[in-house]
């Protein structure tokens, strides 16, 4: 039996960086993966969806490019070609991961891992069973989307993974669930001219977003993209046949080519046989960890979606690195608390730290500063004048506590705010930082000025008495 210092189970965006970091720290490392390197993110999530969204976004821009002075006679798209390009991107990146692992000396096992005991793991592949020894284990098995039991089993009813395998675009889609995944696909399809209806049982789409951001996102999805959004209602009387899927929501009869179920993801723990380690999952099926990434069993760590935290690839990566360092060194590092997120809808959204509403709930006295892209030269020049950035800062100490951005390139723009907040910058410091002109990022500086009560490119609500300190 081959024994490793660290065995990582799951080669997603949390698992493979953990394996590489452990190897960098001198450990012998095995990485077990039952499907493809890169996990859901690379193969059936973030990356392939972004490849499709890029094309759909370009297409939408081309169709509305007359006001930019372009004359495009007949813009069209070939969904099969889009899907093929997406697969190429995925294959290329997957190969990159393989090479990185090899270069770092990580031994990859293909198959499904299950515990025989805390330190013995069986890797079950089609051809054979291999037993490996593990001093420390990092569980990075992730989560998976599935079609819930209440939906009919039919080829017209798909979840996100099956949806990405489609080779042609449907004419109309019913999206069940207005969360991140549902909204991203809805925007992508609407940009391609597909008729989209979203049905969300909660009061609003992407309910965890800042209220101002949500209002802007929904406004543009409805007005600009023409997406039909039904919230606070459930989809009932669902049926599917060879012609269409049908259902009713809020008294309205709905019909479409396809139903996309985007109702959250379930942790993957079933085949692990955790009972052989003494580890128990919580009521929702997640593996709970402490702030160092350690489970109830001291030699077993867990990271990413399977732990029930925020389900973002970047959070999993950070947790993977922390777990690998904690497993291989004497230094103990806590998981990062500041987890940003971005959504590739149209318009894009980026958020980090506290929103105004969360600050109120926590009883933190805050000031906010909001700046619309419309007042920014660059935004006008590139024809993306809608959306805004917003800062949330501690009213007492001026510390930046949160930031939100909605609009063009929001997912890139949020990076500055993440760095600023983690570095514990104050609004004053941010306002004094020179930003390149003309850029969209200038909005952060302007919003800081707004918060301090002395904006240059917008009219201050209260005159005089700036709060600059």
């Amino acid at each position, binding site marked *: 039996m081959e024994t490793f210092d660290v065995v990582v189970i799951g080669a997603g965006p949390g698992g493979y960086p953990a394996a590489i970091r452990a190897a960098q720290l001198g450990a012998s490392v095995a990485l077990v993966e039952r499907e493809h390197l890169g996990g859901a993110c690379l193969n059936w999530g973030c990356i392939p969806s972004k490849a499709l969204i890029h094309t759909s976004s370009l297409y939408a821009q081309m169709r509305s490019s007359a006001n930019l002075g372009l004359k495009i006679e007949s813009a069209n798209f070939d969904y099969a070609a889009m899907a093929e390009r997406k697969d190429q991107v995925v294959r290329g990146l997957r190969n990159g991961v393989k090479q990185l692992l090899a270069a770092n000396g990580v031994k990859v096992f293909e198959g499904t891992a299950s515990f025989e005991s805390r330190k013995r793991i069986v890797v079950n592949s089609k051809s054979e069973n291999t037993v490996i020894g593990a001093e420390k284990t990092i569980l990075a098995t992730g989560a998976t989307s599935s079609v819930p039991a209440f939906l009919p089993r039919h080829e017209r009813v798909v979840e996100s993974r099956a949806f990405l395998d489609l080779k042609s675009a449907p004419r109309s889609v019913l999206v069940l669930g207005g969360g991140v995944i549902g909204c991203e696909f809805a925007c992508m399809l609407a940009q391609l001219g597909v008729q989209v209806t979203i049905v969300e049982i909660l009061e609003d789409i992407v309910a965890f977003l800042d209220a101002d951001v949500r209002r802007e996102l929904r406004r543009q999805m409805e007005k600009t993209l023409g997406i039909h959004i039904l919230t606070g209602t459930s989809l009932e009387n669902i049926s599917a046949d060879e012609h269409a899927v049908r259902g009713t929501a809020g008294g309205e009869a709905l019909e479409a080519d396809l139903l996309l179920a985007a109702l959250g993801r379930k942790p993957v723990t079933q085949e692990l046989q955790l009972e052989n380690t003494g580890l128990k999952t919580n009521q929702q099926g997640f593996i709970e960890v402490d702030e160092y990434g350690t489970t109830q069993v001291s030699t077993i760590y867990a990271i990413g979606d399977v732990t029930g935290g925020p389900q973002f690839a970047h959070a999993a990566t950070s947790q993977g690195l922390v777990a690998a360092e904690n497993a291989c060194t004497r230094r103990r590092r806590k998981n990062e608390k500041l987890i940003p997120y971005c959504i590739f809808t149209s318009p894009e959204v980026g958020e980090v730290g506290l929103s105004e509403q969360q600050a109120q709930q926590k009883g933190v006295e805050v000031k906010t500063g909001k700046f619309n892209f419309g007042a920014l030269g660059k935004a006008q020049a590139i024809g993306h004048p809608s959306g805004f950035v917003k800062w949330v800062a*501690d009213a*007492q*100490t*001026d*510390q*930046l506590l949160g930031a939100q951005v909605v609009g063009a390139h929001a997912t890139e723009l949020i990076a500055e705010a993440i760095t600023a907040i983690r*570095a*514990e*910058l*104050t609004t*004053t*410091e941010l306002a004094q930082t020179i930003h390149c002109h003309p850029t969209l990022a200038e909005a952060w500086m302007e919003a800081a000025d707004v918060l301090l009560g002395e904006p240059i490119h917008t009219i201050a609500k209260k005159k005089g008495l700036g709060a600059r*300190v």
Partner: protein
Amino acid sequence: MREGITTMVRPITMPKLGQSEEVGTLVRWRKKVGETVAKGDILFEIETDKALLEVESFSEGTLLKTIVQEGTTVPINTTVGFVGDPGEAVPEIVAQTCRFDSAHGPERQPKGSSRPAALAPTPEARKPELPGVSRETPRPPAPSPTRGHVGAVRPSTLLRAVSGSRTGEPPLHPTPGVMAAPAVFRISPRAAKLARESAINPAPIVGTGPLGRIVERDVKNYLESKGYYQLRITPAAKRLAARENIDILSLLHDPRPPQRITLARVERAITEKPRPMSRIRQVIASRLTESFTTTPHFFVTVAVDMTELVSFRAELKAQGASYTVTDFILKAVAMSLVEFPVVNSTTDGKTIRWHSKVHLGMAVNLEQGLVVPVIRNAEELSLAELHDCASELIAKARAGRLTPDEMGGSTFTISNMGMLDIENFTAIINPGESAILAVSSALKQPAVKDGQIVVRDIMKMTLSSDHRIIDGATAARFANAIKQKLEEISLWKRLT
């Protein structure tokens, strides 16, 4: 109507709540200026040496003005505010406060301050920066011509609140993370601003300006020499440190110097910052220290078999007569004290004073500290009367309504931790008494009875005695006298 007041405006004064009270601290106003006040409404809360109390209004009208700020200590009868009709003119009066600390000689006025001490003192100025600096019993302001006069207070008679470090006495040891202002401190405004913005304590800086005044250059040199400019302090951390008076340089004394000074490090320093204890806590500290260091304590412990008394009590309860275990102990102790007058006495080391009466103190634990209400003439009271008296006092103590007179003059104290699941403990004698009884929990234990090992309710009691007047044998006999009474069920059948 008091002198100097001719309108309907009525002054509110700091009440005298006990024989020994000379000052009171106004802790919190319960009415705001402009609010309507009815007779019996609670106007404000005060804290004396012994308790927190609520002060009710004797008159009605509108609270026109508050003169004494929250957290300020003033002599009794001081005008703290005015009640009257809305819009009425309020007499000019300035806040006065009481000095706690006369031990350090005359107060030094800050250089260049010609103002009479009529500044409203800030709560910070009142709080002693080191526990124990202020005296246990605040001295009355002497002479005290202000008493009974409202609106006619001459500035020269006013006294300012002072804390230990402001009287020229340097702090005994530096308190990490906290800035303490030195006695005579000369610093230029620019230098002070730089120190404030850098979140450092300028006190250790040697000034090179006139009369040793610290100038901006000195602060810069000091920061340079301390390696301040090499520190990586996050902006938010610096802002917080400056706001909370945390000296950034004091954060470097960690065994492992931080790579970067972040908010978390400053927040830790804030939680570690010494805070003044409440008046009650400080008085407890000083009295207990005095007692334990000046009285030679010795201890005897007896184990009382409470089995029969416990079941007798249950029987009584079933008949509708509800007594607590404490009631029986109070009675047994009162009776035993009559038999052993030496235990019910006081000594100063030279003389001994036997008390003719038994005034029983009962230690009651409250959130903010311990209070000891006193049952007067306990030897004259029947078990039922003791029960009523004790439950009334305990209820008042819990409600914070004990008057200082109900908390003084005890001749012997009982501290009962029976409800806290305690095997045994010892108590510290109350100053002015010669013994205290520490009563522990009645626990089911194996005991030998009639040559058999049986399960009994055993309660341990430990008597702490002042060995100057109580000999070991006396203490032993006294403790056993109580034990025998508690175990003798026929006695209780007679007494109930």
